């Protein structure tokens, strides 16, 4: 699509489009390719994050009224749900292996996207830049293991939780100093041009998000259940002491787990950046939604993480379309608190007395 200045823009199907430093809100007529421009605005450095986020509220007026609108909403929910599922998988891996919940994970996602922006700009090429950022995030995961987790390993759970929160604050604020507080967009290696698929507007990037999630989930499953390394990881998760006695390099397995968690968070950020805005203050909200996904699916369950992620994505997207866009996050957390109260083990998690 071209805007008034003749610049080609990409539009996500939910009506928020952006390119470089400009963005627009458009209203699609459900079922057709017709659209009206609701608002066109520049994201300039003097725009504070709150004003830049304000347009989200305007989307609430775009209420799909027909079946195809509903399909579009469901599709959008599944797409963002894939990102939450990837993050939730990171939580599950770390939780299973170490019993720790990483409260800094949301900031890792944001840093992953920001590293992507810088490395793509630095290398001048999208694919190598994205891959390099991914490698850097794996490195950050390992660094986190050695600098933060290892010194606190013997401490009570509370201490480790506070430790990850502290790291989250450090990472978020350093990120904000380097990349600024404004929402940013990342180039996509797949392209974000919209196309119509049975009346639903999609882009190559969003299809790639879904495909990559499927690939990552399958490979993780194979890694965990079909390889020796996976068997070792599961052994460490069950009983680290016994695993050590069997000659398993427990520290190495922990490092690998944190590397995978860093990589998954980075991947989440890199996949999210091209379609949804990324800014330095969104880490907490992201982490919370992925936590919600993990709780709904069941802590420590791989299929639970995937299903939980998709449910959160759907709840958010359907909630915004049919209930209230301002309270879509509240809906997700209410769902989470409801699960915590009624079914603390989640959909797939096994019941454990110490959980609730």
């Amino acid at each position, binding site marked *: 699509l071209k805007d008034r200045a003749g610049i080609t823009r990409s539009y996500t199907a939910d009506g928020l489009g952006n390119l470089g430093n400009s963005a627009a809100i458009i209203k699609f007529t459900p079922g057709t390719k017709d659209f009206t421009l609701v608002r066109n605005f520049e994201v300039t450095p003097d725009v504070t994050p*709150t004003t830049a986020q304000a347009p989200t509220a305007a989307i609430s007026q775009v209420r799909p009224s027909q079946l195809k609108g509903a399909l579009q909403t469901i599709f959008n929910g599944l797409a963002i749900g894939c990102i939450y599922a990837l993050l939730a998988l990171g939580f599950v891996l770390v939780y299973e292996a170490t019993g720790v*919940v990483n409260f800094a994970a949301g900031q890792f996602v944001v840093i992953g996207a920001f590293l992507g922006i810088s490395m793509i700009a630095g290398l001048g090429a999208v694919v190598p830049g994205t891959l390099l950022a991914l490698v850097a995030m794996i490195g950050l995961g390992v660094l986190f293991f050695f600098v*933060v987790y290892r*010194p*606190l390993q013997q*401490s009570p*759970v*509370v*201490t480790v*939780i*506070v*430790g990850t*929160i*502290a*790291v*989250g*604050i*450090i990472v*978020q*604020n*350093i990120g904000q*100093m380097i990349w600024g507080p404004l929402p940013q967009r990342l180039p996509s290696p797949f392209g974000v041009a919209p196309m119509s698929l049975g009346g639903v507007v999609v882009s190559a990037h969003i299809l790639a998000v879904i495909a990559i999630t499927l690939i990552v989930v399958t490979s993780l499953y194979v890694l965990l259940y079909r390889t020796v390394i996976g068997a070792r990881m599961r052994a460490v998760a069950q009983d680290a002491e016994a695993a050590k006695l069997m000659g398993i390099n427990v520290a190495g397995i922990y490092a690998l787990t944190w590397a995978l968690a860093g990589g998954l968070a980075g991947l989440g950020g890199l996949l999210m950046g091209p379609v949804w805005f990324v800014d330095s203050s969104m880490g*907490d*909200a992201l982490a*919370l939604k992925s*936590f*919600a996904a993990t*709780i709904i699916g069941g802590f420590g369950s791989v299929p639970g993480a995937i299903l939980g992620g998709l449910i959160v994505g759907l709840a958010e997207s359907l909630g915004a379309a049919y209930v209230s866009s*301002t*309270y879509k*996050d*509240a809906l997700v*957390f*209410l769902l*989470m*608190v409801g699960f*915590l*109260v009624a079914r*603390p083990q989640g959909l797939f998690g096994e019941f454990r007395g*110490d*959980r*609730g």
Partner: protein
Amino acid sequence: MSVQSKQLIWLGAAALALTAAGFFLEGYSLRLLNLALLNVITVIGLNLAFGYCGIIHLGQAAFVGIGAYVTALATVKLGWPMALSIPAAMIAAGVFALIVSVPLIRLKGHYLALATVGVNVILELIAKNWVEVTNGYNGVTGIPRLTDLIPGMAPEKAFLPMVGFAALLVVWIALRLRHSHLGRAMIAVRDDETAALTIGIDAGRVKVIAFMLSAVMGSLSGTLYAHYTGFISPSDFAVSQSILFLMMLVVGGEAAILGAILGAIALTFLPELLRDLAAGYVAAGGNEKDIIARLLKDGYLVFYGLITLIVLMALPKGLAGLVQHLRNRAALR
């Protein structure tokens, strides 16, 4: 000398120190001291839930917010006098804490932590979006100020004795609680809930009471804050604020009243100290725009995080533990 009279002597000394501060400090430093004392009230409340009872509470700002918003609505929209708005705020927070504690208290560890975050996020969203009642992002202005009761005095100076009195009162209550049946029951529940249950402690009830007391103290801080600044907005009560309260407690030393006080004061003054350091760095020939100057000037949250990490790793009992250690060494000499 009995423990009680020792405590009273310390409280008296603290009251004298605050009076002296009122005479010698001016303007901005005095304002910071007032805010630090408000934070002391909040963090001592948090200490009851987190330090004593072991409830990982990442939503204390929500209760400070309830205190502030109930105050604002009662005075600005309903025209209630301050004598009613302050107790109303505390009662509202206590009742709300009781309601949410019914489902929450059953949870443990990070499940509880997440649920408290969830509560805080939902309240924050309501404060931001229920515009007819809360004025949304703009917040509420024109809340009557306590300091107007003493006309002709600088508001910072007039507020100090009020918040000082409230803080000392809260400290006294916390001290009394520490060695009471209830206080010991809280610590027993934290250390081993099953063991506490077997000796006849109603762990659920103890946790609900700790959570409620923590909320009421938070709301006292919130209502005083609203009556001090005359203006409140949702960002003052966000999850990030709850995290700051938790950091104050951890840095000061959890489960220690002295720790809550030291942590709240130290972290309230830290940004100012860093700003002075930044000015000194620039004066000594440092570049105003380089990373060190920017970090000192705007990056105080980075230092909060770093200090918290260092305390967790090197000083598990926080500043209060350090004070205790130094006192023990002095006693040995």
